[in-house]
């Protein structure tokens, strides 16, 4: 992991993540895993395709994965499904204040992939 702002952001969000824990009465959810390193995450959403009203995650995962999940669940709240699906790695890495090294990229991207699948599962308005 590179030094500097990226590292500080990741550690801060790992120690004090936002939206960690289950979302009761979720209207959509998805699970993802990195099969070899063992990161596991579940993203749960409230609302429908017109508007995501709530977003939370549960994870047994590394600091980078949890930081990414924290940022993404904050970001997606209030968005339509269409806008949510436009969130990409550029936004994610900018929010992390740095791009993860290639070997850790999958840790950051796992919550994004999982979020996209949860969004795709949202019910119609």
């Amino acid at each position, binding site marked *: 992991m590179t030094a500097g702002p990226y590292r500080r952001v990741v550690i801060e969000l790992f*120690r004090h993540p936002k939206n960690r824990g289950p979302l009761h009465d979720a209207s959509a959810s998805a699970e993802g*895993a990195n*099969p*070899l*390193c*063992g*990161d*596991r995450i*579940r993203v749960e959403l409230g609302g429908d395709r017109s508007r995501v009203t709530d977003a939370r995650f*549960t*994870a*047994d*995962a*590394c600091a980078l*994965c949890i930081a990414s999940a924290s940022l993404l669940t904050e970001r997606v709240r209030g968005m339509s499904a269409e806008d949510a699906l436009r969130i990409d790695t550029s936004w994610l890495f900018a929010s992390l204040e740095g791009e993860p090294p290639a070997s850790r990229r999958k840790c950051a991207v796992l919550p994004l992939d999982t979020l996209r699948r949860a969004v795709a599962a949202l019910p119609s308005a």
Partner: protein
Amino acid sequence: MANKYGLIDPADPAFRDESEVALATLVSATAGSSKKIGAKMIVGRSGRIIGGVTIGGCVDAQVVEAADALFDKDDADRRLLSISLDDDEAWEIGLTCGGTLEVLLTRVDLGSTDDPTVAAHREAMELLSAGEATAIVTPIESSGGSYAVAAAELEGAEPAERTFVDRISPPLTLVIVGAGQIAMSLTRMARELEMRTVIVDGRDRYATRQRFPEADDVLVGMPSEIVAAIDANRRTAVLLLAHDYKYELPVLRDILRKPVGYIGMLGSKKRGVAMRDLLRDEGFTDDELARVHTPIGLDLGGKAPAEVALSILSEIVAVYSGKRA
């Protein structure tokens, strides 16, 4: 054959040619016994010997002789043996333990479902299978038969006569988080120790039946959720062997406030301090954090997976035997 609790199951094929056995149970010891009170030996009328009331020596031989004699009496179905360990010559050269043991011998008719010992053992096994601690109560000085009850039912009970209460706990369950090489060795060894093992990991290429044929359960998913769903009690030991904080921290957040009997975490002292610091910041108390044995295992010096597994099991045996580990 006696099962893992030392109880008699007449349906076991090993008893096919056995109509009658004598059950010997160690019921008291005035000096340090090499086995726990409740240790059992089964002597078959055919001559077979299963188990032992001591770890060896002359006592078991005397019990076998007494059992053989019991079979020859038509009017006796029970006998209390009092066996002195003060052999004169052995005492002289310092090679005796000293003291007296009492061993209760009970004749058991394997062909009768009404035999009180058979019935008591069957009821005890049903309770143990349900995960409940049980007790087999046997009058020592009267002819009344044995019976089994849930151990909790005996709290505060005052028997009217001298009885032997044989308390039997369900086997230890080792919940092993992290399906690596140490876990593989440990699962094999735990079977020999008659412990249940549950393998937990988030990686389905690691937590496989192929790698863990001896495990009682192999569970893949989010480890903290799997562990949280396990009905944990004092007979549950949780072993964090993933050497990865992504599993250790979420699992610890759950189990530190549960009544499990043992928590161990693989890793250096430095890692243990860092883990405690993180959890202390989240509100866990020093008493709660002190429950975690880390570095896990007794310091036997070995580094190979099997050696580390041995050190972990040694610590677990010590903790559950009331020894400081």
